[in-house]
Every structure is written in structure tokens, then in C-alpha cells.
């Protein structure tokens, strides 16, 4: 397989499961993130699991100056290019209430940083006329809720961005898929208490790969969240505003 994947936020628990599945299929991997030591360890793990190539590359969603160099590196790979975005941060809503300045970073990590990167990558992928972009949003973006509406707003913005990007890139043969996970057992949710319909990174990865194969536009994982969120979205605002779901 001469498929190349660039993974943004490759150190994420969820990304790791997905990257390993790609490695086993023999993909070439560009692992982008902030923690170079962990990315190096992950790259080595991927090579031993069967990746045709795996290299670590520095990426910080809050430092767009560095994006150009990464795009240049991606473009050096021939064949099909694909991208997946796992970057995101979810500070406690109470912390944000105490320090509204945290909003900027939250929106940058989950939305504007990755969007800006994808915007730069888009022409490169369009030129190849194929490939897939996977963007990880969240069910939290489907409706603003008292517990995490800043994070939710960032994810909603990213989902809307992806929907537009899909509209644009589809015309050139590039498929854009939005992934909306419910709770997943990762570093982000560890110790946050019991959550309904929680799934694990391995299942999320399988759902993403299946979605990519079937060229799905929006994938919920676990699948039940499509129904749960349809119900939550259908609650009239006068009632919803009084709920703490």
C-alpha cells in the first residue's frame, strides 16, 4: 500500500489505536504533535507493527508558523495522501469560568489550529485528486450544554468547517469524514466519573476505518450516539435551557 497518512495529535490515546491499525496495514505514517519523545516511541512502535515508514514531526496547533514546513514534508510523499485530526483539549468548564482567557486556547486546539492546517493542506490533496481527511469532532459539538459549552463550541465550529471542506474537496475526489465520538476511555476522560455508553479507542479506530471504507460523511462512535444526539437536538430550547444533561 502506498498510502500516506499524516496524523495531527498523534500522541492522543484515540489516535494511537488508529495509527496502529494503519501500521498493520503497512501504511506510511507522519506522526505530528508536541511531545517529540512520545512521538519517537510511537513511530518505532509503528515500524515494528508493520508500517512501511513512520516519522515524528513537530506540530503545535497554537503555533501556525510551523505548519508550512509540515505541509512541505507531506507533499514529498508520492501516492495517496490522507490526513486525520485528533487534536483537542477540554479544560474543565469551571476553570474556564474562572479564567475566560482559556477560551482562546480551547478553540485553537480543537478548531482553528487544525482548520488552518487543513486549509493549507487542501490544495496539495486536491492536486492528487484522491485521499481522505478524517476530522475528530465530538458529540459535545451537537448542542451547547452547561457542563462543557466552550469545548462544545470549538467542536461545533470544527464540524461546520469540515462540512464545508467536504463540500469543496468532494468535487476534487477527496473525501472528508467527520467523526463524533461519545465518551471514550482515554487520558482525556480518565477520572472524570462514570459516563454513559463509553467506548474504547480500539472500537473508535475500527469505526473510523469502516467509515472511511464506506465513504461515510459523519460517523458517530459508539453508534448509539447518533440516536441519543438526535433526541437531545430535538428538545425545544425553552425546555433544554432548564436541563443539565
Amino acid at each position, binding site marked *: 500500500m502506498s498510502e500516506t497518512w499524516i496524523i495531527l495529535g498523534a*500522541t492522543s*490515546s484515540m489516535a*494511537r489505536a488508529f495509527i496502529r491499525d494503519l501500521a*498493520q496495514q503497512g501504511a506510511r505514517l507522519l506522526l505530528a504533535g508536541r*511531545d517529540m*519523545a*512520545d512521538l519517537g*516511541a*510511537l513511530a*518505532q*512502535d509503528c515500524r*515494528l*507493527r*508493520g508500517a512501511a515508514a513512520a516519522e515524528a514531526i513537530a506540530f503545535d496547533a497554537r503555533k501556525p508558523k510551523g505548519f508550512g514546513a509540515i505541509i512541505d514534508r507531506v507533499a514529498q510523499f508520492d501516492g495517496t495522501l490522507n490526513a486525520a485530526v485528533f487534536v483537542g483539549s477540554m479544560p474543565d468548564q469551571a476553570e474556564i469560568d474562572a479564567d475566560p482567557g482559556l477560551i482562546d486556547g480551547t478553540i485553537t486546539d480543537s478548531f482553528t489550529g487544525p482548520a488552518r492546517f487543513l486549509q493549507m493542506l487542501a490544495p496539495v490533496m486536491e492536486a492528487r485528486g484522491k485521499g481522505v481527511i478524517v476530522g475528530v469532532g465530538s458529540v459535545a459539538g451537537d448542542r451547547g450544554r452547561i457542563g462543557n459549552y466552550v469545548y462544545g463550541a470549538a467542536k461545533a465550529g470544527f464540524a461546520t468547517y469540515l462540512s464545508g471542506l467536504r463540500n469543496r474537496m468532494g468535487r476534487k475526489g477527496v473525501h472528508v469524514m467527520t467523526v463524533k465520538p461519545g465518551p471514550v476511555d*482515554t*487520558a482525556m476522560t*480518565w*477520572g*472524570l466519573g462514570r459516563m454513559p455508553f463509553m467506548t474504547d479507542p480500539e472500537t473508535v479506530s475500527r469505526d473510523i476505518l469502516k467509515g472511511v471504507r464506506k465513504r461515510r460523511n459523519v460517523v458517530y462512535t459508539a453508534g448509539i450516539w447518533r440516536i441519543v444526539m438526535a433526541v437531545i437536538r430535538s428538545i425545544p430550547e425553552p425546555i433544554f435551557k432548564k436541563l443539565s444533561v
Partner: protein
Amino acid sequence: MRWKSADYTGWGRALGATGQLARPERQSALTALVADAPAPAIGNCRSYGDACLNDGGNAIDMTRLDRFVEFDADSGVLHVEAGITLGEIARIMAPRGWLPAVMPGTGFATVGGAIANDVHGKNHHGAGSFGQHVQAITLVGPKGARRITLKSDPGLFRATVGGLGQTGVIVSAEMQLARCKGDIVTLTERRVANLDEFLGLLDRSEATYTVGWVDATARGDALGRGILEEAETGAGLVPPTRPSKSVPFNAPGFALSAPVVKLFNAAYLRRVPERGRTVVKPINEFFFPLDRIHNWNRLYGKRGFHQFQCVVPLAEAAALKEMLMRISDAGMASPLAVLKRMGPGRAGYMSFPMEGYTLAVDFRNRDAATRLIGQLEDLTAQAGGRIYLAKDSLSGAARVRAMYPEYEKWATEVARADPKGALATDLVRRLGLRDKA
């Protein structure tokens, strides 16, 4: 690092703990954690009793530190993070012709757990214990990481292998894999009429992997009857394993009641034709037969179960016979009873194996089972054998010390490695292993 309040149990679910768990996802997080708040490491909690519990305290869940670090395809030496499971190593490496040199009956055991209990497999008579194939261990303590080998630190190495996690957190290990011919096994099963025939067949078996299933409900002339399994790895094409199923809730008490077990065992025995048979299977189905049903431990109901496992010297076949008699008389055995011949191989001061026969039987948790297991431990002690701490949930301090002659050496090394006792687990406390003698 965030801590999670959790209720967790050993595999037998008879013993549980409430405490705080951390689950580092990368080595830097682990190092910082241990420098800050040292705590015992746990793997997948496949130990039956309380080896993997720290009630009222902290523990470090190692399962996300599961990366391949290095592999030398010429020598077969593999370096991995300690939270990777043996099943995962087998899944990735078997198609390339390599397997962990020793694999216990569950693929969910992590490398860290396999070292800390110096586990044995169906090839113990030939290959020895897991720790004998470990060439180096990297331990993390409050002062940072340290790579040890049998040569560099013989005492600490022997106290770490089979050392119940008391010398530090194992972050990674380098081990010699064994060559395999592919990812299937050729398995020969034959019916065995009774214990004497069983022991004879085990003694004479020349197979790489040998294990016996015993019908622990059989009595009289049929006492110790069962099935002998002998296997070799090979190459071939067989359909992949069907996806695993799971037991969704606690089974009611009658699910494993005496008449049900008797019927089940008789049927299980008849599965194999009278003249035996040879079949071909994917390796995981042979090595980890129970892993295909997730949470099968729920079959024993809410109160859980105990596994008794002992090893007795070769000359003590009479003790085994006595044990089987007591078990079948009590009518309390579950379908799970395993008999195997062990070689002398062991790698740590507190390692379980000794040359002899090992017997493992599951019992639903109830008072009568506790009494019966006490008797079985007496018989083990009288025979000069020992019980396996990875399975134990009922034994006592004096008994265990008497069974493990190198205990003092272990205790000395452990006191040096963890002077404040920060790594103590429920098992270590129950058996007084860290108390001054």
C-alpha cells in the same frame, strides 16, 4: 496526572479493593508519577486473588504503556513496554515466526505481570518459566529509571522476577522470543482413564506444549480421568477465531452447581473420540481458550471464586491422588481443573515452579470451599510442595514462608529497593511478606 476512584477486583472476584488508579499513557508521565507518589503497578488484574490490589491506596494501571520498543530479527530479542499483553505480542509476531517463549493460559497477562509472577506455560517442562527468557528489565523508582540484568544486579533481578511488583515499577523488558513455525498449532487430544495413566502420559510426553484437563468430579476407578493435550506450532491456513463473546451479568448460583458440572464434564470428555484425534487450530485458541469469552469469571456469580494451584514434587503422586479424592468427594469442583508436569525452571527467589506436578482447580466462593482449600494446602505443605501466589486469596503468612525457601533473600532485596513499603499490595500485607521476620 489525574487519579480515578475505582472499585476493582482480582480475576476471581472474591477479593476486591477501592482505591485511586492512575493510568499513564507515556513513559514521561509514569516517571513523573513515580517520583511524586510511588505506588504498586498493576497489569490486567488476571491474578485471581489480591496480588493486583491495593485497598485504600493507590495503584498504577500499566496497560497503556504497551509499545514495541525494539526487535532484533536475527537474535529474536524483543524489547517492549511492560503493559503490552502477551496475546498482542503473539498476534503481531507469530506470523513472522516468533512467539513469547512462555505464555500462560490467558493472553491478557501483561509482560509486567508475567515477570512479577514469573509465569509458566504449557511448555514449562521444556522451556522453563517466563523470567528465564527475560534478559533485561527497566525499573522505575522515585530516583528514576534503571536497567538491570541478571549479571549487573543478580539479587535485585531475582527479587524482581517473580517478585510481586515489590522492587519497583517495571516500565519495559527485553526478552528472548522463541521460534515458531507459524500461527497455528497441531493439537493431539486423547482421553485418559485415570490419574495413574495421566501421570504416566505426562512423564513420557515429548511434545513442546503439554497440558491435561481433569474431570475433578470423577471418582473411584475414574479418579483423575481427563484429556491430554499435546501440541506443536506450525504453518497453515485455518479460519480466524470467531469474535469473542461476553458474559453480560453475574450467573445465578446453580449455573455451576455439582450436577451441572458433572454433566458438563462428561460431555466435555466425550467431545474427544475414544481413540483420540488431531486437530489444527489458530494459536490463540489453543493457548488462550478462555479468552474468547470475555468476563467468563462472572459465571461464578456475585461472590466470585477461588483458584487453588499447587505444585508437588514428582515423588508425591499420592498427595495428588488424595487431593483429587477430597475434591470429588466434596463435589465442589468447577469444570476448570488442570494438571501438568513442571520442569525445574524458575528465575526468581519467589518463583512458583519446582520440578513436579501442578494441579489447578476453580471453586465457587463459599465457606465449604474455603475449608476444602485449607485441606488442600495442608496436603501440599506435607508433600513439600507450594501454592501459587498469582492464584492465592486464602493462605497465611507462616505457611507461605515455609513453602518459599528463598523468601529471606527476596525480603532483603525488597527492603532495600522500597524501604518505605510504598509498593505493598493486599497480598503482600495479607501474607505479611513485608513484615520484619
